[in-house]
């Protein structure tokens, strides 16, 4: 059974705050839910499917309690930053199967106010697999550094090419009033910023912010009666990559497994896309993901992101909101991929609008490239 066209995104909301020490995680989520349901023209009473992760002493049940919901469908798939891309695909499948009618996907995070050292805090745990990693000073950023270093060695990818990604994300952010960092930067600025874990500079790394977001999904039939143009969910896929019992090829990402499936399920090819939201935890993440998804050949990601190809007005604008590198990244930014792609497909992006935007790809990456990560691809269209 295909989910293609059976469900649509009908409401989205990105919480405007990037620094919210006066709020709680639940507040960010409730405010985002209110915003997305208003955007959809629905109410909380319509919601019968709940999707979230990384919340509550008892996870999704705690959130359901706080919102006073008793949904027919609950999903707290926990894949890291890509979770919400996965949730959207799962919501479409649940709706297509008749398990729920209106799905609410929620995210909220106070990691910036909490001063949570996501990137450089050391990846703990004495259990496998971390048991064989934490004695060596493993960090999130370090693991991406391992991947970037190997990519440069195998394919000659340069810091300048990776820097282009950061520069492009910042250029897009200058057009996004909600983005945290809006001063333009140059390739030289990126290369001059201090190295956190080689070869990655500070400006190769996403920020940490507070934030939240919500997405509402319903059936295609229900969507037709609502306020805005429905954004149809055409295909979805997810996967995880890891050290493969000692063989891990660091230049492949889980996107290699999800890209072909999601595109085939949607019945589209790479050339059909008008824009893409590619999880940008780090510049190297975008480079490797584009290759693994098949937008270019392996090793050609560096050249692909140069010469304006991934900027507004280029062949494949990426992360028109400014991404995790420049707009927001509260630790897990998958929901913002869905939100921005939806706004683009509806024609709501104003100064950063992609002309004639009809087909968008979202790819979330959770975890880290060097040790283990998830990939979730979603194809959206109007």
């Amino acid at each position, binding site marked *: 059974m295909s989910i293609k066209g059976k469900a649509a995104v009908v409401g989205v909301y990105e919480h405007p705050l990037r620094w919210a020490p006066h709020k709680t995680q639940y507040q960010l989520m409730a405010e985002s839910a209110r915003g997305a349901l208003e955007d959809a023209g629905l109410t909380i009473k319509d919601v019968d499917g709940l999707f979230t992760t990384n919340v509550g002493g008892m996870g999704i049940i705690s959130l359901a309690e706080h919102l006073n919901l008793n949904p027919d469908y609950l999903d707290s798939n926990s894949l890291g930053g890509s979770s919400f891309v996965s949730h959207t695909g799962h919501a479409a499948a649940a709706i297509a199967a008749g398990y729920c009618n209106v799905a609410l996907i929620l995210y909220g995070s106070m990691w910036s106010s909490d001063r949570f*050292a996501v990137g*450089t*805090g*050391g990846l*703990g745990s*004495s*259990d*496998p*697999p971390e*048991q*064989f*990693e*934490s*004695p*060596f*000073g*493993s*960090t999130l*950023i*370090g693991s991406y*550094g*391992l*991947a*970037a*270093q*190997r990519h440069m*060695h195998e394919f000659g990818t340069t810091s300048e090419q990776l820097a282009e990604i950061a520069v492009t994300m910042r250029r897009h952010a200058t057009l996004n009033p909600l983005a945290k960092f809006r001063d333009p930067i140059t390739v030289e600025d990126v290369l001059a910023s*201090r*190295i*956190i*874990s*080689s*070869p*990655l500079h500070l400006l190769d790394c996403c920020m940490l912010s507070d934030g939240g977001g919500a997405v509402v999904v319903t059936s295609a039939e229900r969507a037709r009666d609502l306020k805005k143009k429905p954004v149809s969910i055409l295909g979805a896929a997810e996967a995880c990559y890891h*050290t493969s*019992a*000692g*063989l*891990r090829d*660091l230049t492949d990402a889980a996107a290699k497994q999800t890209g072909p499936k999601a595109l085939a399920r949607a019945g589209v090819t790479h050339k059909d896309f008008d824009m893409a939201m590619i999880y940008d935890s780090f510049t190297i993440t975008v480079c490797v993901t584009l290759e693994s998804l098949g937008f270019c050949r392996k090793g050609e990601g560096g050249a692909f992101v140069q010469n304006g190809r991934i900027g507004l007005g280029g062949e494949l604008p990426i992360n028109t909101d400014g991404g995790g590198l420049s707009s927001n990244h509260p630790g897990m930014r998958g929901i913002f991929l869905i939100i921005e792609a939806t706004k683009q497909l509806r024609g709501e992006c104003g100064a950063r609008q992609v002309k004639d935007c009809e087909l968008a790809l979202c790819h979330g990456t959770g975890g880290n490239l060097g*040790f283990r990560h998830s990939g979730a691809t979603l194809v959206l269209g109007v």
Partner: protein
Amino acid sequence: MAEDKKPKRPVPRIDEESRPFWEACARHELYVQKCRSCGKVLYYPRSFCPEDLSPDLEWVRCSGKGSVYTFTVTYQNQSSGFRDKVPYVMAYVELEEGVRMLTDIVGCKPEEVKIGMPVEVTFEDVTPEVSIPLFKPIGR
């Protein structure tokens, strides 16, 4: 002071699957496993073969030699034990036995580390029970 008594590195919680591996490290010996059923060589240690779930694994003594598959020089690590170690070099080493393991490269300056560099294992005694396998350029 409590800080002085803390191990120099995070200590693995030795469990029944990994005990033989860590006990060998304490003897300064590096081992990986090979599945007798399908021949797969694997790291990190498990009680079963990930290829066919066979419990029939044998321990293979490593030569201790390998080469750097990739590395990163880390300049910022907020966690205790590493805050003061920066910069240090974390790396995947590809062992002669065909698997890649995470480790640190020691015994040379960070800028000397190159992908492909031949290295050999050296052990750092962290507690009386636990030694950690690190790698250094061959001949140092």
